[in-house]
């Protein structure tokens, strides 16, 4: 019984070793790696062809659900299935990551599997080969031994090969002289360098994925923003001192530049500039200038009784509010008004405001109404209590009513924002505009009982015990914060790949065996590197002025 049990254990052990051996051979096989690469290539194609969940919403399940819902129009009943199997997020899908991991393991196993053999082959090459090799080698050339005889020929060949950077050894055995020449043998490791580079690329990618960080921040001048959402051992705050965007005459941006300070642990740790091409760096993080937004406004509201701020924000006015530029002339043609009317009243689709035309003491509601095409506008003017001054005028045309000539010169888009917090209850509209002299002013609508408040910098306005202050225009810097701990792996990998490719394809590596016997000399090499073999032997034959023996003749000689 004990013997049987022992035999069973031994059999189990053998099976385990066989299984491991099979697994090793599978992972070491080129076919398996090529299959994986093919699979990943197809997956990559799917990621390009199919819409992928945007990176920015991946942290929010609700946003992702809404996004997936939006795909239903295109993919119908397949949508849920495609999402579940990861077709909308290919690079994060378990099967993609598994294939990637298997490829890394496969390449690693391949390297390990071949390394010892290659090492031996480089350091302890086989210098003597049997006669059959000289007869059957895929690369071979035979020529008549020159007049110098076998010894002289061997010496001459060794000198010629040495001059061409071969390491040469000769050995005399009876009437035969054997020759072994090797050049750039170590270049065989180039193949390993390329494969190690592939593994490092994958490892670098994984490290970046696991230990990396990317966050996009939009930071207004004079404000700070954290790199992480709450707290973090590496938490830093970025303060933007000055955000600059320069544009050419066509309005195309030419450069973005930000002066910024980085704080960590309650201390200033770095100060400098970041531009699009020259990011600022600190503690392994790089701060790239990724964007610019020029339409911001700082608004502060104080409680008049306590003096405390109840609202203090820099508003990113990223909505566009259409506003008419209106020119009003009197009967003599003198311009009474040439200004953009900031809309504060909204009647159905009309945007406008009640204004007093300078020099007339007359109030008008002036606004714009979209036409049916929703691309062009009409000027709408209404004088309360005066029915005869209610009219429309198309863009660019003048209309004289109530002793005034009205022209809708242009419709401009004003930066604006609807937001909460400004009004004690509900939302408020904030619009940034400029006077004809270029002085910026802020119009806040809905802050105090629906009343519009117009604010100029340095001129606070008090409404209902609240003091409103426009503290000036502010620009925003788009900063992308990146930490990429895998970057060093990627650089090393790129270098190794280059070295590996150079060693493999550029260096004329060649190993030659020679046999000088009687009046026949044969040089041979392995099947690979045929081009290098042919070029080297051609050079040798020319240098020795040797007469080549054609293959048929060689066979005949060998048969004799």
């Amino acid at each position, binding site marked *: 019984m004990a013997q049987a049990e022992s035999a069973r254990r031994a059999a189990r052990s053998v099976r385990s070793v066989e299984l*491991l051996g099979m697994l*090793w051979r599978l992972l070491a096989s080129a076919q398996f790696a090529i299959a994986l690469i093919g699979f990943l290539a197809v997956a990559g194609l799917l990621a390009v062809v199919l819409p992928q969940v945007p990176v920015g919403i991946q942290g929010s399940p609700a946003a992702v659900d809404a996004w997936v819902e939006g795909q239903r129009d295109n993919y119908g009943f397949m949508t849920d299935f495609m999402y579940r199997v990861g077709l909308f997020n290919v690079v994060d899908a378990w099967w993609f990551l598994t294939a990637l991991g298997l490829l890394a393991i496969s390449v690693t196993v391949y390297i390990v599997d071949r390394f*010892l053999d290659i090492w031996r082959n480089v350091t302890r*090459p086989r210098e003597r080969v049997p006669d059959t090799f000289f007869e059957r080698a895929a690369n071979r050339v035979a020529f008549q031994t020159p007049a110098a005889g076998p010894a002289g020929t061997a010496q001459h060949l060794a000198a010629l090969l040495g001059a061409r950077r071969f390491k040469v050894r000769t050995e005399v055995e009876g009437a035969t002289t054997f020759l072994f020449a090797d050049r750039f043998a170590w270049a065989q490791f180039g193949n390993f360098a390329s494969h190690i580079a592939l593994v490092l690329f994958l490892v670098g990618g994984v490290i970046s994925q696991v*230990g990396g960080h990317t966050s996009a921040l939009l930071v207004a001048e004079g404000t700070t923003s954290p790199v992480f959402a709450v707290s973090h051992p590496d938490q830093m705050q970025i303060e933007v001192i000055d955000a600059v965007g320069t544009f050419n005459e066509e309005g195309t941006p030419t450069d973005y530049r930000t002066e910024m300070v980085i704080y*960590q642990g309650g201390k200033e740790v770095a100060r400098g500039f970041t531009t699009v091409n020259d990011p600022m760096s600190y503690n392994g993080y790089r701060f790239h200038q990724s964007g610019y937004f020029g339409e911001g406004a700082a608004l502060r509201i104080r409680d008049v009784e*306590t003096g405390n701020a*109840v609202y203090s924000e820099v508003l990113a006015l990223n909505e566009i509010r259409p506003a008419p530029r209106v020119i009003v002339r009197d009967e003599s043609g003198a311009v009474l008004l040439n200004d953009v009317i900031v809309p504060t009243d909204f009647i159905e689709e009309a945007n406008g405001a009640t204004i007093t035309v300078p020099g007339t003491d007359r109030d008008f509601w002036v606004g714009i109404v979209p036409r049916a095409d929703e691309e062009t506008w009409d000027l709408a003017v209404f004088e309360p209590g005066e029915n005869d001054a209610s009219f429309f005028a198309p863009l660019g045309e003048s209309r004289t009513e109530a002793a005034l000539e009205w022209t809708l010169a242009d419709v401009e888009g004003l930066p604006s924002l609807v937001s909460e917090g400004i009004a004690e209850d509900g939302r408020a509209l904030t619009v940034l505009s400029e006077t004809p002299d270029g002085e910026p002013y802020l119009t806040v609508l809905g802050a105090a009982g629906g009343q519009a408040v117009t604010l100029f910098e340095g001129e606070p306005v008090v409404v209902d015990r609240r003091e409103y202050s426009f503290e000036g225009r502010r620009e925003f810097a788009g900063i992308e914060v990146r930490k990429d701990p895998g970057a060093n792996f990627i650089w090393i990998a790129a270098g190794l790949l280059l070295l590996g490719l150079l060693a493999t394809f550029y260096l004329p590596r060649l190993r030659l065996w020679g046999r000088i016997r009687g009046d026949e000399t044969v040089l041979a090499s392995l099947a690979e590197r045929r081009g290098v073999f042919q070029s080297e032997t051609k050079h040798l034959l020319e240098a020795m002025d040797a007469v080549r023996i054609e293959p048929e003749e060689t066979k005949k000689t060998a048969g004799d």
Partner: protein
Amino acid sequence: MSDAPDHLGEAGGRSRFGVLRALVLPLGLLAVILGGLWYLDNRDSGGIDDAYGAVELPADRNPTDQGPAPEIGRVGPDFVLEQPGGGTVRLSDLQGRPVILNFWASWCEPCRAEMPELVAAYEEHGGQDLEVLAVNLQETDSRVLDFAEEFGLEFPLAIDRDGELRDTWRLGGPFDGIPTTYFIDEIGIVRDSVFGPLSEEMLEERIALLLEGTGA
């Protein structure tokens, strides 16, 4: 993988190391990678004094038979933090009256939005009846003091310089954000928490709950 070794080399003996190589080398490689990752994650991030942050709660300040945790019915985790401009504050030293423990930052818009409500509540109840402790997350003294002056913060302020309280106090709850506010009674037990900005009504309701217990 097409470049095979020279077949005439002194190859052989591959199987001798097969099992060893199959296990030891991949595992060794994995260990190197994991070690590298561990090193990257645990590098010294910069000279913050370990004396501050979470500390052990003295036994005589824990009226429950459970360990401290930021959960309703449990005594809140203790901490010692620096105050902007000098001094320190310890949470357990505030036992004896209810505490509103608020975590905030000047860059946090909802924090700015709720701060006037906290200021108003402190003006009404602060001092003898109720304490408010506002813990700033990892900002500079000057920024905290400027903010306090702008918004008129009269209550004690502290700074969690290394962000250690994020996990200790589970900031943001399920939302990973601030503000986060805990309502702690006079014996240090958490009575309620709010993840997100406080409205006047929310604040008054919870203050009433805290003061109910003290009879104030």
